[in-house]
């Protein structure tokens, strides 16, 4: 598997992380090394194995449908970058 600078830029774009040309080149070198390490996985035949998502084979617990939260807007918005009239402000959302 070979990564390219444009792959790195595409991933960074998906991850919403700004990256310039130099950083992308530097990242490419590191990611290529890491993916060489990761590629060693492919040597093992796993065709008959079920994927394992969780360490324990337990199932989802359900919560009773009840309102347990109260309004804490003031506290929660005290740490927000920008609020007005109870709303979180962001650059214009265009739909």
């Amino acid at each position, binding site marked *: 598997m070979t990564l390219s600078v444009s*792959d*790195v830029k595409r*991933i*960074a774009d*998906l*991850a*919403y*992380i*700004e*990256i310039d040309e130099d950083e992308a080149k530097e*990242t490419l070198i*590191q*990611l290529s*090394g*890491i*993916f060489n*390490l*990761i*590629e*060693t*996985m*492919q040597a*093992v035949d*796993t065709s008959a*194995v*079920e*994927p*394992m*998502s*969780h*360490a*324990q084979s*337990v199932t*989802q*617990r359900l*919560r009773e449908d009840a309102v347990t939260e109260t309004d*804490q807007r003031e*506290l*929660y918005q*005290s*740490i*927000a*970058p*920008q609020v007005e009239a109870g709303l*979180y402000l*962001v*650059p*214009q*959302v*265009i739909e």
Partner: protein
Amino acid sequence: MFNASLKQFSLQLAEKKISSTELTTEFLKRIKALNPEYNAFITVNEELSLAQARAADQMIAAGQAGPLTGIPIAQKDIFCTKGWLTTCGSKMLSNFVSPYDAGVIERFNQAGAVNIGKTNMDEFAMGSSNETSFYGPVKNPWDHAAVPGGSSGGAACAVAARLSPAATGTDTGGSIRQPAALCGISGIKPTYGLVSRYGMIAFASSLDQGGPMAKSAEDLALLLNIMTGFDPRDSTSLQRNAEDYARDLQKPLAGLRIGLPKEYFAEGMSKDVENAIEKALDEYRKLGAQTIEVSLPNAPLAIPVYYVLAPAEASSNLSRFDGVRYGHRAKSYGDLADMYRKSRAEGFGAEVKRRILIGTYVLSHGYYDAYYIKAQKLRRLIAQDFTEAYKQCDIIMGPTTPTVAFNLGEKSGDPIQMYLSDIYTSAANLTGMPAMSIPVGFGDKNRPVGLHIIGNYFSEAQMLNVAHQYQLATGWHLQSPV
């Protein structure tokens, strides 16, 4: 006084030889004097700590004290702590004063423990040297040129340097055990699901587990009694009967079958570490245990599997850091997407970004099966290896790390070398099994060596027994760098 065990501190408090306020003040003074050199703490808040100490003194006076009431505990800065700056070692959260408490913090608060400060850590727990912290590296108290390990580097340093009687850590690939080994202390990652993850800032949800770090196995048992327990707010928290993790500490080890995975005693382990481990195993044989060679054929794949699964989960877990509701927002930006991209580019450090990119890639269209599903399948094979091994032995031992602590800056430019320091530890996160590290001597440059003890699911009490019996017979855990 700083060397006392938790039991001894508790006794002194109960006998009114010292108050929690005095004890807390002493530790705060020590932190004030030594932390500038170690950088083990990101936040110290005398006012909040002393308020908790005074409340603890009232509990003690009222006869309501438990085993940890009034004792200072250092909290890893990954646990959301109401009213405290909770940074997770990141610029992204450098202004985040948590409006709520993590489950673990609540349990310590209920026990009357005193939060002595928030410890330094690799950014978002991604690192093995504490060098990825936005708040700068932590020094290894045994050798200031060396790293303390990571990601719970501040916690390990704080305990080793006696800046706190004990500390909490979290372990996703070795983040409790590796720094414990490198700093010569004891630390345990319990079975996945025993310690609530609620309020513990997520790195890789299916691997993350909180646990205690302390001077001895006996202390760890007391801390585990507080930290573990069902939390309905965490869907992966296990509903089990409460247990006393100290119950089996005194059991003799005669007949104990210790499995030694041949894959862990192969090339990669340095000579000095091997010597210390062999001596420790000799000690165990003296204590009546027998050692058996076992095999974990897929264990060498733990690192590649881990570096697919952990970044994949992390890439998604860290998407919430967008500068909208809390945390860092770039000062200048154009449109919405630009605000996101700049805030995240500025707020995250290089290692975190690298892992987000790896994770994004392995989950992306066309690569998911080849990487993510493949890694999950191998995860099962690795777990099956351990289950097989436990048919032959009671417990598995090996080195916690391939080498003693490396120098600051030595591996920070080489991610792969850094990743390989978790070569023995990450399997326990993939399987969800409990694992711990205890100090068993010193290697090159007089830097500590840790013995890795891996147990089957829910065998914490037995593991602590195994560790405690060794600590009764030897004195490595009593050695202090200060």
